[in-house]
């Protein structure tokens, strides 16, 4: 029982041959269908990037939520000795070779300090280049504002 269709019976061979034109002819004058690829995607997931406050400092408060939740253990945060005075991290390294771009760090961040909107580089000179420090991660902060979607604006 394949839903009442006559698929097991044989149909005439000439008709079968003619049907091939159904596929070939449209493909000549029709360009490849770009119906679903054209529209702009607002929330496209990219590489992790650190956001800045209006004064230019890092938003990050070293709460360690992203480091603890990362399933591939690629985030490493070092704090200042007196963390109560200086909230921003001393070092914030992401090993991008381990990162799977799952976006859990972005979801877990309570102060909107990390966003998955950075550009994804495809090649580098040495393995050292793939451990991104906080300076490199925050270079894209300026471009970030234009990229963030309407549905989730940056934290005020």
């Amino acid at each position: 029982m394949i839903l009442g269709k006559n698929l097991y019976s044989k149909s005439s061979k000439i008709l079968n041959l003619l049907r091939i034109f159904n596929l070939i002819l449209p493909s000549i004058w029709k360009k490849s269908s770009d119906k679903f690829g054209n529209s702009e995607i607002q929330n496209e997931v990219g590489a992790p990037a650190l956001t800045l406050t209006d004064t230019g400092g890092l938003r990050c408060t070293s709460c360690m939520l992203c480091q603890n939740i990362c399933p591939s253990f690629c985030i490493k945060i070092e704090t200042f000795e007196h963390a109560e005075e200086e909230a921003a991290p001393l070092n914030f390294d992401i090993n991008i070779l381990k990162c799977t771009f799952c976006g859990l760090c972005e979801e877990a961040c309570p102060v909107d300090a990390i966003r998955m909107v950075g550009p994804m580089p495809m090649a580098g000179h040495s393995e050292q280049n793939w451990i991104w420090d906080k300076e490199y991660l925050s270079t894209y902060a300026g471009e970030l504002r234009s990229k963030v979607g309407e549905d989730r604006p940056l934290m005020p």
Partner: protein
Amino acid sequence: MFDFQEQEDLDLINNRKLLLNELELEFGENLTLGTTENISIVVSPSSYLEKILQLKNSFGFNFFLNLWISDNIADGENFELMVQLLNMDTHQRAIITCPVTELEPVPSLSDIYHGAFWCEQESWDMYGVSFDSIPKERILSPEGMEGHTLRKNFEPKPFRLKQSVDYSFSPDPRVSRSEWKRRSVHKLDMFGGEVNGPLRAIVEVYDEVIERGRLEIGYLHRGVEKIFENLSLNQIQPHLCRINTSSPTMFQQAWFGGIEKYLGVHIPDRAKALRMVFNELDRIYEHLDTIGRIVDNLGCYPFLKETIEMQESILMVMKKYSGQRLNGSLICLGGVKSDVPKGWLTECLNLLGFLEKKVLEVTKLISNSTLWMKRLCRFELNSKQAMDWGVSGPNLRASGVNYDMRKVSPHYFYNDIEFEVPLGINGQCYDRYLVRVEEILQSLSIISQLLDNLPLGDTKTKDNRVLIPRKQDVYSETNALIQHYRFYDGGVILPEGEFYNSIESSNGELGFYVHSRGESTLNRVKLRTPGFYSGQCFTDICEGGSIEELPLVINSLNLVVGEIDR
């Protein structure tokens, strides 16, 4: 008017009650009725084989689901052997538990249920519990390794890979000596592209015709179950989409659905409907993938282009939703990740129209073509073989067995939606292909019905135990910030106990068994992936084919190595 459907439901409930009563009479206090649909039975090692035979012959548990070892007793030497069976008349699942040790071999089930063969081999590989008449060979981990990986006290040591592995088949007494000499054994390694992941087929060939064959797996083994035991519940989420990348939301649905059922969390109607939409989109994607691979194996490249175009259009719509093409975690604990973006519903409806037109156009051309039928009307798997191996999903339905979990034990709104279950007749590659084509069309109608009646409301639950507050609230409100920390820092902790949840995935029954001790990490996770059982029936199917047809056989069963090896 007499309602047949209602009468059937009543009959089912009565039959189930009768079965449970009979089981209670037989097993007495060893039987416990769990909170889920599962019942669990404890048997002693001496009566293990006898009881399983009794369950199969007198109680109708004729379908083998799973067999695994669990170290609930944490002393390193004593384990629990668990066998899961299904009664197909009453849809009752049973877990049979038996205490075992590594010293005494356990009687093997592979004569009663053929599908237990790989499971028992895996049990020796992972836990060191041996079985009668099962060779002590590594199935997932490399040959030459020491120790058993899934034990709690396992420590990795460096080892040297065993190079000379004997691949020859055991001699067949029916074959004459002169013919035996002319038979040759070939190892064929297949990689991504030809089939879905790295696989090795070992075949015995006589006059270019395959006489016997088997598959060797384990080349993509990542130890997903061990990873799940070491991560917290929040961290497991991204790993779920990466087991089978063609249908990521199926795994998430089985996992999160199980946890929600276990905790007693109710999710809103809109989230239920959206989850169903994602699952059906995944089903379409995976079936298109299968058809594309079959088309590729036969060399009909123009149609391959068409199937890829269809798959790409699905991916673009998914990307619009989550921002990622394949691995965007759409489903989260207690609902779906975010509400529908602006204009997404229209785009999805457009996609349905596009897909239906395209699928009909392509399949009309190839389904009746003589070449297509000549190549595909082969490699039979009859219903008895399929049931013995534990094959489920479209492969089982292609053999003529009407069993779809969406119909027989429906979750969410599958009860209210009209769709039909396509069945095959001969169990050949052609039937498997046709069943998939029909399922695509049925899935399209399911999605369109869902999108027409999409319920309004929230997309996340308001239950305090699994609540993820909205980001805007976290930035401004203290309560939401506290809840945010509670969820992401402490994590969700499952109370002590065990559960099993399964759904009808695109390849068959996909289930998660989870055992928790009430700690932040889980004690034991076991996946029931459909490919693990369809992979074994390759032995029965491949006879009489030639070597260049092997990828066709494998792809018609849709063996995804990522989910077989785990």
